[in-house]
């Protein structure tokens, strides 16, 4: 085809990526907003390897070209991810948009990426030099800057299963559908044997990159809920320092206040 390729295997796709300057086209729902087309497109919709979903015991593995709708309909997709996916735009966008595109577009507003952040997902990239696995947090280098070489494709998202059962999720948009996140928050918290076994939080659409501060969340891990309550003020204060919001469609002050409100509510929900 003119100005594009539609490979039918991952191998073919990687060879094309190595040989040409191409823009990977997953769902197109971000890419097509731009009027100008500089590069040819590499269409990913015919590559079966990028469409698979499996459970390897430790991770649920999602092919990067799975659409939001496909994952909403898939039995292996955890409830938290489904909740976030169901709030993305509207059916037509969910039908075409993919998790790989959502992540690799590099936006801190990406609703599926928030869930992969809070769950400390791993990303698998493949390129001329082979495959590599990296934590999603390391993939984002800054605003719209990603750790992806021009020949590389994001091929798989590995979502750790362990702590997903007990979650808190909020998205603030300007309306109930067709809403770009003005702020989003996800939290995971598990209490086992009377102690906080796991605590993870992530803040989307607040800063250039989704905020995930495992070091601060660690303040609560290993504590009883009562001890957690005692540490709450310090914990909130640490996030108050850590969250440096940017202004956009809403003010920085609004973003900060709501982040902290939701963080407090999240803890309260778990009796902390």
């Amino acid at each position, binding site marked *: 085809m003119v100005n594009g390729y539609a490979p039918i295997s991952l191998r073919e796709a990687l060879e094309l990526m190595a040989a040409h300057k191409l823009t990977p086209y997953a769902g197109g729902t971000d890419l097509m907003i731009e009027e100008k087309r500089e590069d040819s497109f590499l269409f990913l919709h015919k590559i079966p390897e990028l469409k698979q979903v499996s459970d390897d015991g430790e991770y649920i593995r999602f092919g990067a070209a799975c659409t939001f709708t496909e994952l909403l309909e898939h039995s292996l997709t955890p409830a938290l991810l489904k909740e976030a996916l169901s709030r993305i735009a*509207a059916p037509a966008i969910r039908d075409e948009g993919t998790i790989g595109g959502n992540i690799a577009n590099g936006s801190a507003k990406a609703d599926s990426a928030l869930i992969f952040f809070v769950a400390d997902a791993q990303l698998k990239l493949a390129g001329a030099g082979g495959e590599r696995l990296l934590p999603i947090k390391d993939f984002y280098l800054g605003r719209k800057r990603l750790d992806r070489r021009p020949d590389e494709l994001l091929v798989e998202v590995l979502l750790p299963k362990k702590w997903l059962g007990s979650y808190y999720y*909020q998205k*603030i948009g*300007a*309306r*109930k*559908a*067709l809403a*770009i996140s*003005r*702020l989003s928050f996800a939290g995971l918290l598990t209490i086992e044997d009377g102690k906080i076994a796991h605590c993870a939080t992530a803040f989307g659409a607040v800063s250039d990159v989704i905020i995930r501060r495992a070091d601060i969340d660690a303040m609560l891990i290993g504590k009883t809920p009562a001890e957690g309550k005692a540490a709450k*003020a310090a914990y*909130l*204060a640490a996030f*108050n320092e850590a969250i440096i919001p940017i202004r956009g*469609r*809403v*003010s920085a002050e*609004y973003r900060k*206040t*709501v982040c*902290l*409100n*939701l963080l*407090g*509510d999240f803890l309260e929900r778990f009796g902390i």
Partner: protein
Amino acid sequence: MREISEPVPKKDHAAKMDGSAVYVADWPHKDMLHGKFIRSPHARARVVEIKLPPLPAGYFAVDKNDVPGINEVHIVMDDTPVYANETVEYIGEPVLMLVGPDEDEVKRLADETQVVYEELPPVLGIRNFDTVFFDYRYDKGDVAAAFAAADQVYEEEFETGYQEQAYLETQGMIARYSDGKVAVHGSMQCPYYIHGAVAKATGLAADKVRIAQDITGGGFGGKEAYPSILACQVAVAAYKAGGRPVRVVFDRREDMEYTSKRHPSLCVYKAAVKDGRVTALDIDILYNAGAYTTLTAVVLQRGVIAASGAYNIPNLKVRGKGVKTNTAPSGAFRGFGGPQTFFAIEMMMIHIAKALGEDSLAFRLRHLARQGDTTSTSGRYHFPVPLPAMIEAVDQASDYRRKRAEYSKAQTGRFRKGIGMSLWFHGAGFTGSGERDHIKAVARLRKRPDGRVEVLASQTDMGQGIKTTLCKIVAKELSLPLERVFYENPDTDRVPDSGPTVASRSLMIVGELLRQCAIQLRERWRDGEEQTVEEHYKEPDFLLPFDLDHFQGDAYPTYSWAVAAAEVQVDSLTGVQEVLGAWGSFDAGTPIDQNILRGQMEGGFLQGLAYASMEQMEADGKGRIRNNSLSDYIIPTAMDVPVMEAQAYVEEYPDGPYGAKGAGELPTVGGAAAYLGAVEQALGGASLGRIPFGAEDALSVLRADAPKEVG
């Protein structure tokens, strides 16, 4: 229920449903020329020089020097230039148009065109005006004496923002000049307004100008005056193009940023209260007209007349100014100046009641105007005012009184609820003597030899159903099946000037003219012959003449009435607001089609609620409107107000067809105060005076109240 109210399939249904309807952008344009505007990037500047790139054969530029007639767009006053004169007055003002056969090439040439400007300091922000386009004032009773005798005096400021029509089809026009005649067709509300404007700009005689409406994808006022501007620009380009049609269809951003929107307003209300009753109002109104006057005069007139709402206030002083700022001209939007002042008066009444410790609905009920009372302009409410019964209907549907009492108790949870109610009217038809002195509507029916009857009028159907309702009226009077009465999109070569499709006048005025035509035809009917009958507008004889210089007399022959309740939940952690339910009762007289009226009520009501909540648009410090896309200017989706119930209340108007009166604008006008009243309650009794009111606004109210959670 009258028989005429029985719903029928709409005349325009089939072609729109199956995608065969041809809108302006759908015309085959392979052989057309494409026009692209070069617009001012400055809010105010002097145009120093235009530097065109080398233009390939077949491409040309059009500017003020190409206007064959007068470089003015005829609207009300004619200060809007077709193409910019020596200065540009707002960001987006068209300086020139590049025209040529290949659209991409035209865009490239447009990008390479350089205009040299000398920037001038702009006037931005409604408070900073230095030019007053219009300054109206009227008085009733003795305001000074009422204030002198008052027990209490209250003063408050109210502010409203832009509202963008956001019709789904953007503006577009196609023009062709051949054999000494210019023909323009496109998306429009008012073919004869455009006809007059194009004649002036081209200098052509009236019979050398032809304007035809294409199927129009929504208007809401946004296609009342703006199409006159665009049509003049495109007609001038066509004049230069020598026979080839020229086409301009706006993209969404162009449409949202540069075409007319609802006027932002700033109102100061001062009330005198004596023995628990408002005895006088002293009201100062500012409407932000933008850079040119366009429709501001008439929008502002409607706003100042409605300033005291549905209440009988014996002493009034109302002053309204339409002020210039260097922003895109504001214009018509469903409600036409009414929503701004109805918002203000309703909030003012709610706040006074609160200060007096009285229930706000009971307080307002005590002040309601009744039949026979004088209006704000010392005219009469000639017909019954059905608001008390409508309030009961809405109370029953919404459970307003019980909820209002329940939500007034202290709420401490995350989600807090409130319910509000607002009352309003819409003066049906043109303000004052506009219908008699300016419009002078003429409507015709033509019977064909085969017995089919054609409606000849200049009313445009932009979705509101006028094709169907006018045909229904004619079919009923002639006892014909509806299929035998038809109405084509108006074309000024074929139809008389029955006036514009604005001001909720079409059904009430033109519908009645056509009913009279049908009666005439019925009486003179001869089988097998072609026959034409015609009727001219006559003013009802009960009217007290309206004096526009002093705003005295009957501003409107009759009024349509409305009551709305809105129940809102506010998330105290995020400020996000959710409409739990909205209930409205609307009296537009006899429904000429129940389904069509329902469509007007529901669609209009939602627009009015969104005006208060999510529809946020602002000009920034440079005068640029950044909310210029459907992702940045938020209109409701199907999920935003899932519970919305509208019911019709019928108070028949004897001079409208079968008792019908204005319906189109009414539902949009006054819902904002119901919404904000609900938010106030959810926020624990805050006093609010500004719309739109978003999540951030709610959170700042909550933060001001609450102790800090995080130190």
